[in-house]
């Protein structure tokens, strides 16, 4: 019985994965047509990007501050506090920036996108568009997908900037580290190609993954209040797992 259930559960997972793959291809296919709806794309970039700025900035600041505190303590054991700026920057650029930004966007914008599309499905708005000969994939799904891909790396840059600012606040203003040492070591060690761009590539991939999951979950949400609620939850759960899994795979290839 359990084996049957597990097989069923596995089958369901594989079927969903296949459906998501087909949906991804359809969304990509609708991308050229969706560029006609550039206003909608701008609106979505505003919604995913600008509306997530506050949470990304605040979280970036605190992550940078905590990083600086923890690393200062660890580095002081080995007498290497001069490297604080470098280590904070590397941690942010290579790992924490892309990953935490993606998790935050999945929680704030991803859930909203899923709920919005799910409700559009439940209230026949997607069918109405289709009946008015407007492809909902091109008008609704593709702009939201593209908006995530565009907004995520921009948000990651803001997160990193705020994180470094937070690290500077703690390291230099509070713990008394030399300002020149903090910036000098950082700029001489962190490279554009190896560190900054690698983080940006991750962010672009995470942006695509989070948007795809959010849009797919909304598009396929059962047209009930419970169905939309479950789909919204699934967006956060699946996005979080996939972000961390992709992060491992990409890090393994990049290092």
């Amino acid at each position, binding site marked *: 019985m359990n084996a049957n259930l597990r097989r069923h559960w596995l089958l369901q997972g594989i079927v969903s994965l296949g459906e998501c793959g087909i949906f991804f291809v359809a969304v990509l296919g609708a991308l050229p047509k969706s560029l006609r709806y550039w206003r909608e794309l701008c609106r979505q970039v505003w919604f995913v990007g600008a509306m997530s700025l506050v949470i990304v900035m605040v979280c970036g600041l605190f992550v940078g501050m905590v990083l600086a505190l923890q690393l200062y303590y660890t580095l002081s054991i080995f007498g290497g506090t001069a490297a604080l700026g470098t280590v904070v920057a590397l941690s942010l650029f290579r790992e924490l920036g892309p990953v935490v930004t993606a998790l935050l966007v999945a929680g704030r914008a991803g859930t909203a996108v899923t709920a919005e599309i799910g*409700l559009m499905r439940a209230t026949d*708005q997607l*069918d*109405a*568009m289709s*009946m008015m*000969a*407007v492809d909902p994939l091109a008008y609704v799904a593709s702009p939201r997908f593209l908006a995530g891909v565009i907004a995520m790396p921009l948000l990651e840059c803001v997160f990193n900037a705020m994180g470094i600012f937070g690290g500077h606040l703690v390291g230099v203003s509070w713990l008394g580290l030399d300002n020149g040492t903090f910036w000098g070591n950082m700029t001489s060690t962190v490279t554009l190609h190896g560190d900054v761009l690698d983080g940006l590539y991750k962010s672009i991939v995470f942006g695509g993954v989070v948007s795809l999951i959010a849009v797919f979950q909304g598009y396929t949400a059962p047209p009930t209040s419970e169905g939309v609620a479950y789909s919204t939850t699934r967006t956060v759960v699946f996005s979080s797992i996939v972000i961390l899994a992709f992060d491992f795979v990409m890090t393994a290839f990049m290092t």
Partner: protein
Amino acid sequence: MSHDQTASAKHEPSSDALVQVRGLRTRIGDKVIFDGLDLDVPRGSVTAVMGPSGTGKTTLLRHLTGQLRPDAGSVRVDGEEVAKLSRRALFALRERIGFLFQNSALLTDFSVFENVAFPLRQHAKLPEELLRDIVLTKLQAVGLRGAAGLMPSELSGGMARRVALARAIVFDPMLILYDEPFVGLDPIALNQVLRLIRTLNRTLGITSILVAHELAAIRQVADRVYLIANGKLVAQGAPDELAHQNSPWTRQFFGGEADGPVPFHYPAPDYATELGFAGRAQ
């Protein structure tokens, strides 16, 4: 009308039919919705489709617009086999069809004006001034020109339905499908909507198919009524003619009787057994 007479409800194919349905068979899950449905809708007519709840009236509309594919049979609209159309051709056909959804389906992010303007903005590159005039004309026709700036959340159910109606007719399509257009309308709005449907039909020759239950309203507006039950067409004719037919179907449906060929109760186990009364008398 006897069952033999019911069989005579089958029509001869019409060469001037905008909509032709032949041998339509549809099954959703385990439920058979249509079991060999045939009907024609003449060009330029107002046709009402009636029948008990759950009999597939909305499903029929979804077949006409290609939202559903039949298991067997054919659905032709303006000579085109809907199920065989490519996506592009289907969308081209839909540009010529207006659809009024049962729950209005207004786009909640847009104002009333933008909802009505939506199809025009997508498919016609009109100067903003002309577009504005067209939208306001349609809103005036449904009595909601003054509500152009409101959001859908600020509308009552009846108002939302009238906005959806304005949106459905904004392109002056060749065919308008109305799914329950009279629900939630007050008598004044109902009268105006009836007049609008009739005017669109007479002045522009727009073919209309109405799914509705309000016999009094249908008598005023429809040229022909199709009565569907048990997956088949069981009666057809002019509204007055149909209301006076002596068929078990029409007698039960128009008389609102619980007993007849259409069961009022959904299939269930024996009532007394389910309540635990069976065998107690012994």
